[in-house]
């Protein structure tokens, strides 16, 4: 009996040793030599695998950045400037810092502003609804309200506001761009967070002329060109009957918003305006007017957007302007 146990132990032990030797040589032979810095970089990345950097996950980003030996064009929107500086130091490279961004919803066609005309009874997906019809409010450019963007968000940074029927981007948005891709109507846009988290943008995507646009929504851009005229920094451009504020040229002077007759220009996180007789009441929704959490580290360290372009010429723009407004 003892002998059997002994043989078993010896033979198994021998197999083990032989296998170990084979494995050792095989491992030597097929060794994958990998830059140890990849692991180092991956370690500090957020491991969210959101794809916001444009690569297939954090590991791929680390591999590419180490391979490139150059940080130009590499940016992890989740980690922000801090993380990129850290990586830059670890790799001995200079980080290509970007302004922190946030997704903004360029539509204010809530149930109140764009009343429901028809009821959509189909699949609850913006992608499907967009292929079928123009929307419950009738606007062919506005939010469909099925929440594809909310579903796409990996960071719990969006929710549907039951009252307005529109999605809301919370302050913890990392600007990974998943919602931007999910939206079939390209309403969501990544814009710089701005100094002190303040932003001004046109909350409309409607490219129709004033009369048909206003038939569907009370807060549509009518392309009246008043904002374009008042802007001294050449930041506002009107194309296809729609105003667009270039965030890199805008100095947040707030001159344009009171000019807008339909309250389409949103001012986010500004102090309430001082009462002035000619200025209309602001109808910025409560959710936006609230001060943001000061807990966000990204916005605190943002000094970059301070140096907004100030050299924009204020001379008159050449082209003749015809007011399309009615």
């Amino acid at each position, binding site marked *: 009996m003892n002998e059997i146990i002994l043989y078993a132990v010896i033979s198994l032990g021998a197999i083990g040793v032989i296998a170990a030797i084979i494995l050792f040589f095989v491992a030597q032979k097929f060794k994958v030599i990998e830059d140890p810095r990849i692991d180092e970089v991956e370690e500090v990345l957020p491991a969210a695998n959101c794809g916001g950097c444009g690569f297939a996950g954090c590991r791929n980003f680390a591999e590419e950045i180490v391979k490139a030996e150059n940080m130009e064009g590499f940016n992890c929107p989740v980690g922000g400037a801090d993380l990129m500086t850290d990586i830059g130091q670890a790799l001995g490279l200079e980080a290509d810092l970007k302004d922190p961004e946030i997704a903004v919803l360029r539509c204010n066609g809530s149930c109140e502003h764009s009343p429901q005309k028809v009821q959509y009874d189909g699949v609850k997906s913006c992608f499907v609804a967009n*292929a079928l019809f123009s*929307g419950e409010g009738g606007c062919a450019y506005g939010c469909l309200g099925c929440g594809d963007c909310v579903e796409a968000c990996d960071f719990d940074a969006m929710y549907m506001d039951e009252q307005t029927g529109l999605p809301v981007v919370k302050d913890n948005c990392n600007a990974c761009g998943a919602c931007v891709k999910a939206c079939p109507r390209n309403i969501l846009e990544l814009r710089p967070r701005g100094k002190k988290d303040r932003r001004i943008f046109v909350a409309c995507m409607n490219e*129709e002329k004033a009369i048909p646009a206003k038939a569907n929504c009370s807060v549509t851009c009518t392309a009246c060109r008043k904002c374009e005229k008042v802007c001294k920094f050449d930041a506002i451009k009107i194309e296809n009957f729609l105003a667009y504020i270039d965030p890199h040229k805008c100095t947040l002077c707030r001159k344009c918003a009171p000019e807008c007759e339909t309250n389409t220009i949103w001012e986010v996180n500004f102090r309430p305006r001082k009462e002035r007789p000619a200025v209309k009441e602001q109808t910025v929704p409560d959710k936006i007017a609230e001060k943001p959490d000061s807990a966000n580290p990204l916005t605190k360290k943002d000094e970059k957007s301070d140096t907004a372009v100030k050299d924009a010429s204020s001379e008159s723009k050449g082209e003749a302007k015809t007011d399309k407004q009615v």
Partner: protein
Amino acid sequence: MTLKTFKLGGIHPPEHKISAGKAIELMPIPTQVSIPLGQVLGVPSIPIVKRGDQVQVGQLIGKGEAFISAQVHSSVSGKVLKVDGVPDSSGYRRNAVLIEVEGDDWTDGIDRSTELNRNIRELTQSDIIEKIKSSGIVGLGGATFPSHVKLMVPKGKVAEVLLINGVECEPYLTSDHRLMLERGEELLVGCQILMKGLGVDRAIIGIENNKMDAIDHLASLIADYPGISIQALKVQYPQGGEKQLIKACINREVPSGKLPIEVGAVVNNVGTAFAVYEAVQKNKPLIERIVTVAGKSLMESANFQVRIGTPISQLIEKVGGLPEDTGKVISGGPMMGKALNSLEVPVVKGTSGILIMNAKEAKRSRAVNCIRCGKCTAVCPMGLEPFYLAQLAKYEDYSGCEKNRIMDCIECGSCMYTCPSYRPLLDYIRLGKTQVGKLMRSRQN
């Protein structure tokens, strides 16, 4: 007469042909029409009128220059208000010509008499095709494919038989049925013109046997029209589908992704045959069509002869206005029709009916999980697996959709009708089809 039908799949929805006994009424000319320039399955036409122009009935207002495109004619006389984007049935803006009606002046050369003209001896094949093309005739069954393109048989293919589609398998719709009863002779002459245009000596008119009066009526007339025969078909949806009709009538199967000409057949709707008669014999372009207005809760259902461009609201007013419990207004039949976004959209060449559903009928049941019962696969007339295609489209595997032949889907809606879990199969399949279509086009370019 032996009844024939197609073998694969198919369903039997309740027929509800409530307007079958109602004679075709002439709809009064509206005060304003909006004539869309994209009434064809192909490239939209180019407007050749501008604001302020005076137009007459039958005047050309939109030119179709591409190969798969069609001419658009004014259906009324009056002044062009504007040429602009007007919301179509989906709410998206499409280019249309808005005309304010003034009187009823017809262009010279249109024969408005109702006298039957059977003389087609002098016509040549190219005459017929040219006439059909210049009259802007498209398939009036609903797909609106330009009819002259169907008659131009590609090189290497031979047309053997012309099939005339009088099936009208969609529930509620009766416009083709009434047309066969009231315009039977004209229809048969149109059929002969199409045969001559195609160069075939055989035509079969397929009619489901729930329209026995139409079958009997046409059968009593065909003795004077050599080459034309009538085939009674067993009632089954979607027999009016081109490929299903070919299978039922001549027992040939169109290969996947190919056109009917591959098996030597060309299919035209009865409405198209009538329009061809009017175009060739009476020189009248396609400016009118028969539209069924039906609904369970309507005071009365009716069949109207309507000028293209008439707002749908006027048709509904004519039958006593929208009932209070209306849930949906559908353009087309209940199976393949499209719910309308607004009642101001115009009647177009492809509008075969307006269906008013009450709130109870219109409501979709809540979709629950797929139980893999396979009913959708069993009823699919194209032999596809709808549950699988819908799933692939939902998760954006469009190459998978293509491999599983999503483009063969005829969107008949049988799968969704039969699904015990009320799954929105067709919604996803349609989405998949658009995406696969884009993929295929990008590959071509």
